[in-house]
């Protein structure tokens, strides 16, 4: 159950009691409120998984699409109507396994959207199989002898690709998460927020307690330089006894829409067919 606050609309959800998703839902709602956005101007494109259900519980337009395809779908919607504030929302399986290729290319394209990854390090909805984010050794339904593969590092990958906004936050830290989501929305370009999300049912390793003991805010002493790409990349590998949260790397790059600047001064969705131009194109085939 969620308290009916701000943008949150659902009386009931399909999430387990105590799920980290509740913290994410609340922080998202607060961030939208503080940004003074109208729900009508917000679009959430989500995938399939427990994370992908989030938009059904919060005010805004929703396109709940396929497993793994949130990023291209969100990209198309944003290019068609740049007036919308577009979120892509999905799980770690959705984004880093099924949609891995799209993840790489959305970063390269630098489309101006905010990507929230509910990173519970497991496939939740399908009941607890290993995800690319599962810690090595984790025993799951598909890895009875423990996960052998090294975990995927989304932050290092994004920094390697010169992603414009690369952040990690934690579902158990409302203030930090709210602040990070706001900064991500305000960033011009592709903004990744990988959100550490305890899964109370299937992940017995990365629990609330696990994170409480390890998570620290990068910006706590004000010395972290988020424009230093090399340092950010090194920081992105810190995992274990101490886990940094915050904006690891931020740089302004031309966005995908900038490539179409001549066309997108008015959103595509507000433009009509230009009959004269098409007529001229037909004429160009005259011999």
């Amino acid at each position: 159950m969620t308290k009916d606050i701000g943008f949150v609309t659902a009386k009931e959800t399909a999430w387990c009691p105590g799920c980290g998703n509740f913290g994410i839902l609340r922080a998202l709602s607060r961030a939208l409120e503080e940004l003074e956005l109208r729900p009508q101007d917000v679009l959430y494109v989500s995938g399939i998984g427990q994370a992908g259900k989030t938009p059904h519980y919060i005010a805004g337009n929703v396109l709940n699409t396929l497993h793994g395809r949130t990023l291209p779908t969100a990209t198309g919607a944003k290019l068609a109507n740049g007036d919308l504030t577009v979120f892509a929302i999905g799980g770690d399986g959705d984004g880093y396994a099924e949609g891995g290729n799209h993840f790489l290319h959305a970063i390269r394209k630098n489309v101006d959207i905010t990507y929230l990854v509910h990173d519970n390090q497991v496939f939740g909805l399908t009941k607890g199989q290993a995800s690319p984010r599962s810690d090595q050794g984790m025993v799951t339904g598909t890895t009875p002898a423990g996960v052998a593969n090294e975990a995927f590092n989304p932050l290092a990958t994004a920094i390697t690709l010169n992603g414009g906004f690369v952040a990690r936050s934690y579902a158990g830290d409302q203030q930090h998460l709210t602040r990070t989501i706001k900064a991500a929305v305000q960033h011009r370009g592709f903004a990744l927020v990988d959100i550490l999300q305890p899964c109370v049912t299937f992940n017995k390793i990365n629990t609330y307690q696990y994170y409480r003991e390890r998570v620290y805010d990068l910006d706590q002493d004000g010395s972290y330089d988020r424009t230093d790409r090399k340092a950010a990349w090194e920081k992105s590998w810190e995992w274990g006894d101490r886990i940094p949260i915050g904006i690891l790397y931020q740089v302004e790059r031309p966005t995908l829409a900038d490539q179409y600047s001549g066309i997108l001064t008015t959103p595509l969705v507000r433009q009509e067919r230009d009959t004269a131009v098409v007529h001229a194109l037909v004429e160009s085939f005259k011999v």
Partner: protein
Amino acid sequence: MSNTFNIRIGGEAGQGLVSIGSILLRAIAREGWYLFAHQDYESRIRGGNNYFQIRLANEPIATWVDKLDLTVSLDRATIGRARKNLTEDSLVIYDPDVFRNEELPFTPGENYIALPFAQVTEELGQPRIMANAVAAGAIWAFLSDDFSVLADVLGELFGRRGAEIVEGNQLVAKAGFDRVQGLASKRQKPARPEHPAERILLSGNDALPLGALAAGLKFMSAYPMTPSTGVTEYISRNGRKASVVMEQAEDEISAINMAIGASFAGVRAMTATSGGGFALMTEALSLAGSAEIPIVVVNAQRPGPSTGLPTRTEQGDLTFAVAMSFGDFPRAVLAPGDVEEAFYLMGDAFNLAERYQMPVVVLSDQHLADSYTTVTPFSVDRVEIDRGKVVSGAEGGPDYLRYKLTEDGISPRLYPGFGDGLVISAGDEHDEKGHLTEDGEMRRKMVEKRMAKQKLVEEEALPPVICGVEDPELVLIGFGSTKGAIAEAVANLNERGTRAQGVHLPQVFPLPASLEEILTGPGEKYVVEGNASGQLQALIASRFAWKPTGCVRRYDGRPINACYILNELKGGGACD
């Protein structure tokens, strides 16, 4: 069809065949002839043997023929491949230098004219790369006495590269023209139309994207795959002028999902691909069916299975395109038969997709994609845009239900941000608002609502296009790029005293109910199609519980023409 003249220019990939082809096409069309040109090429960048074949006539033509009147061979292989298509009157212009010291595989003389293209070019102090212009000039000598038309076209096509290149090309082309004059002056020039009309010259891969622009396309995303790439590149080159975003995706899955995202936001969106890429798009087609998001996909077929014959033609994706994906949802599949239909059907495709909020597949194939014809200039005004039921402002208020249950199954769309209401869409089963539901009753209603639309799509299915006589003894039925071949076969049969009729299906799913009248009407029925298993036949049979007299099928990667159909009919065309 005695007044047609057929030219083949053959050579290796990289020898500039497409360049000679486009020069000649333009000059021929400008002189008033009608033409049909098709391409035969291998999946490689250099070498091999490719050809560009141009058939011209004094009246409209819509297909190709086997018999070659004039063959220009830039390499050694062309002559061998052309041999079975030569007659006593056929002429071959060849380059003796490519045979060096070998014995010639033919007897030089009146029918085989030596013209050392590269040598002529070099003697005139021009780079070897211009050798193909010598060939163009030589061909022109057999079509016209007036060299200036060709010179003008060379000027237009090479103008951007500077005066030196233009003049060089004109110089060597004139040399080619002059060198064969002795023979050319003895031959009768092909007959010209008495009243040349204004026409445009383009290929299927030009007409499809042009039709999409005329239909108000605003967003395209695609991943290159032969033979659909021309559609994608046309929009990449020209989209901006019409304020269209064309974004190259990282794969076909991304391509179609981007287009679906754009369509959801309220613009007309499409993607283009070929067999394998289309296979990757199928999950998203199912999403579009469930979430009721309009989407248009051009699938330019090539022979499968797998990557098959990448640069050749087949109609083997019909069953797959109709089945489209998993689950029940409404859809339509269109199959333009020529360049003109390709243009106008794109308008129908977008209107259908938006009226019924569903996926529409436009089946092209390599033969349609890469073949050029001269046609009456398209009318952009004739392409009406019907965006279906859309609400905005007050109608799209707080009570707006994206999946409102209505009598006809169509729930008005609201573009996000265009009203006070919220647009909630999902591929998972949903209630009227768009939120997820597992309720059996709601599920049943939603299935019925979606499938109600399929009925309406069927009711307005495009009628068959008929040619030939009204009381046939023989009926040829086909879809897509066989249209011209069937029409010519029918004309031939009628000329020879067999009362024949051709039936072309521009829409293959759902099939128009009116087809039944033809199926049960007079005459023996043959289904003509470019695949091995008889996919169109099976589709018609499953809809109308019907069996044809026989069939004509082709699956060697080559296009069907009238001659092929007539030969197969003679051979019995045994049918399963």
